[in-house]
């Protein structure tokens, strides 16, 4: 029933773009007619109108038709589309899901479309994320890492000067101390929180990209592979099929407890979201990505701000991975769609986007040309990707892992017992990974 219903729904949703995929009548400039490529993408994310118009100006006989959904609905929408016979030509999807979609046969491998040297130009974490069983599915539009933004005007009177170098990064104990000092009010009467609530996912605690780092930092990638320290750092077995004993190690439980303590013991961050808490001076610190800086530059919040590397406990670690563009395996226009992917992910179009959005480039050549990547504060994000960056736990079932672990961390933040909840998460995700 579900397959039937989803196929019906997907057909209904995408009938228009699919029909638009047909070529229009021939014209003098376009003897074969104008081809329309359909794209499913999340709202307020690339490919941006500027990227599309730049590409269309060089490809007069191809038009891009966008179908935009909120980011939170993107993965479900793609699931529905998988059953459709005529999905869009292009998908903008979350990079860590590459293996999931590749294993399901949704994405088209792009190896044969890659010009010589392109693969070598892709930064290592992106290449790892977008490769499955030796084939590459997307060059990548951008990379991401997380750092700690702070309100310098609030910290200055307290004599707190966060470090600017990765080598001198705070531990979480130091960061929590600073957050406690900066917070104004306590109990039911907090006017300024030490740490802003997460704005990622559905703006509740637990989103793996941000909050699973509290767990992974308790691990150690240099420890013996059979040790729980090693397993804690990776969170999943190397083949992506085992979470039991990797997700719920004693060190992972320690990390989850530290995360819960921010809400329930130190009480330096709220359990419910506060929109724009940092920009509105309702929080001293916030954990965010490099392009959060673009918002602060373009819409001056009215205070001095700075960035310090993400705090750690045992091992510094940040998650990499960002939205990326791929071609659907069922696209009837794979050559044109692949050209669009490669053109907007590389060269001037990608560079202009990376510059405008303050997004970390996925191409080394673009990174080398952007001067602010070498300057404070955005150099911190770039260096984190290079020195501390790892993909979120890679698996052909990452989407399920992501959902179950996010829910577990949210419950732990709300007060659930860390060990019991991580054990339950490992038990729930294990059969899905083993499928």
């Amino acid at each position, binding site marked *: *029933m579900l397959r*039937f*219903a989803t196929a019906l729904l997907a057909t209904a949703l995408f009938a228009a773009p699919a029909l638009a995929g047909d070529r229009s009548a021939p014209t003098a400039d376009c003897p074969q007619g104008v081809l329309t490529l359909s794209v499913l993408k999340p709202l307020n994310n690339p490919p941006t109108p500027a990227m599309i118009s730049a590409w269309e100006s060089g490809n007069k006989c191809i038009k891009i038709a966008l179908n935009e959904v909120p980011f939170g609905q993107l993965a479900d929408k793609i699931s529905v589309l998988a059953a459709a016979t005529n999905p869009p030509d292009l998908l903008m999807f979350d990079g860590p899901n590459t293996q999931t979609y590749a294993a399901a046969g949704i994405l088209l491998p792009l190896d044969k479309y890659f010009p010589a040297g392109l693969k070598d130009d892709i930064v290592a974490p992106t290449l790892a994320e977008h490769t499955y069983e030796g084939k590459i599915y997307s060059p990548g539009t951008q990379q991401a890492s997380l750092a700690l933004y702070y309100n310098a005007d609030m910290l200055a009177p307290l004599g707190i000067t966060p470090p600017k170098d990765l080598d001198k990064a705070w531990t979480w104990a130091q960061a929590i101390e600073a957050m406690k000092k900066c917070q104004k009010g306590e109990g*039911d009467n907090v006017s300024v929180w030490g740490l802003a609530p997460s704005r990622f996912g559905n703006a509740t605690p637990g989103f793996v990209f941000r909050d699973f780092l509290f767990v992974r930092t308790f691990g150690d990638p240099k420890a013996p592979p059979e040790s729980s320290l090693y397993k804690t750092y990776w969170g999943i077995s190397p083949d992506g099929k085992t979470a039991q004993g990797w997700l719920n190690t004693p060190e992972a439980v320690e990390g989850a407890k530290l995360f819960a303590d921010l809400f329930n013991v130190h009480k330096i961050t709220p*359990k419910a979201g506060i929109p724009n808490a940092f920009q509105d001076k309702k929080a001293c610190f916030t954990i965010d990505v490099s392009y959060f800086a673009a918002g602060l530059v373009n819409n001056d919040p009215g205070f001095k701000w700075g960035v310090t590397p993400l705090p750690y406990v045992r091992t510094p670690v940040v998650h990499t991975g960002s939205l990326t563009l791929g071609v659907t395996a069922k696209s009837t226009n794979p050559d044109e769609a692949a050209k669009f992917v490669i053109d907007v992910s590389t060269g001037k179009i990608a560079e202009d986007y990376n510059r405008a959005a303050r997004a970390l480039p996925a191409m080394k050549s673009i990174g080398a040309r952007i001067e602010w990547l070498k300057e404070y504060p955005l150099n911190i994000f770039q260096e984190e990707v290079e020195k501390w960056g790892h993909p979120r736990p890679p698996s052909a*079932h990452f989407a399920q892992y992501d959902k179950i672990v996010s829910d577990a961390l*949210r419950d732990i933040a709300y007060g659930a017992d860390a060990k019991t909840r991580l054990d339950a998460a490992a038990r729930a995700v294990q059969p899905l990974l083993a499928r």
Partner: protein
Amino acid sequence: MTRALRHWAAVIAFVGPFLFMLLMFQYVPVARMLWDSLWDFALLNPDKRTFVGLGNYLDLFDDPDRRQAFLVTFGFAAGVVLTVIPVSFLVAVYLNGTLPARAIVRAVVFLPVVTSAVVIATMWTFLLDPNNGLINGALVILGLPKLAFLTSKAQALPSVIGMMLWQQTGFATVLFLSGLQGIPRDLEDAARVDGCSALQRLRHVVIPLLSRTTVFIVVIMTVFSLQAFAPALIMTSGGPEGTTNFVAFDIYQLAFSLQQPGLASAVSAVFMAVVMGISLVQMRLLRTRWTY
């Protein structure tokens, strides 16, 4: 064309489109759901499937998360029915009298019924916000401590029941009101002549004669509650710790997020059977013993 043929042509013309839609969008999907419940597959790759027979049904009964979803949903339905019925009955009795401001109260009570469930869930998320919510603001003014509401394991479900009470009271009130207005005046007058007080008339005349309406409202409210989806999707994501993970939301999560449409179909089939059973039991237990 013979008279019989004309008759059947008219029947097909009037009933045919509806029957076709009913078959296509109700019975065929249900049959397909039952078929899918016997397979293990992922929506992302629906052609690659393994026949598991009743395996999904066994998993369902063996899985504490699924059992919790059923218990939470039944608890939610019971909470909604047990609060909506008395509150809406009292409001209906008030509106059936000659007290002032009836028209305004009727409009105010009915307004949430015509508001989208998504809008209501979003609005109540703001109202119940533990930091800046209006309800906590009111509690602070009254000198009471703030409550966690949707982030508390103990308070999340009662909070959502409270929202449903606010939303559904208007609908149930209108139904009770129509029932009250349908009770013959002379029955109450006779009871009054016999010396019954207002409370006695309510207990011995009005309530028994409203049993048809009450059965209908109980069944409708139960079905509405068992279908609850928007509160879990928008307000709580089924948490904390699954305490608002209603079955409808659980089915959605299983099918789309966890890529287990076979298991989701099995849950749907069991849930459908349970809902039908509950409705039958309710109609049997609350069957009308008095009529007029």
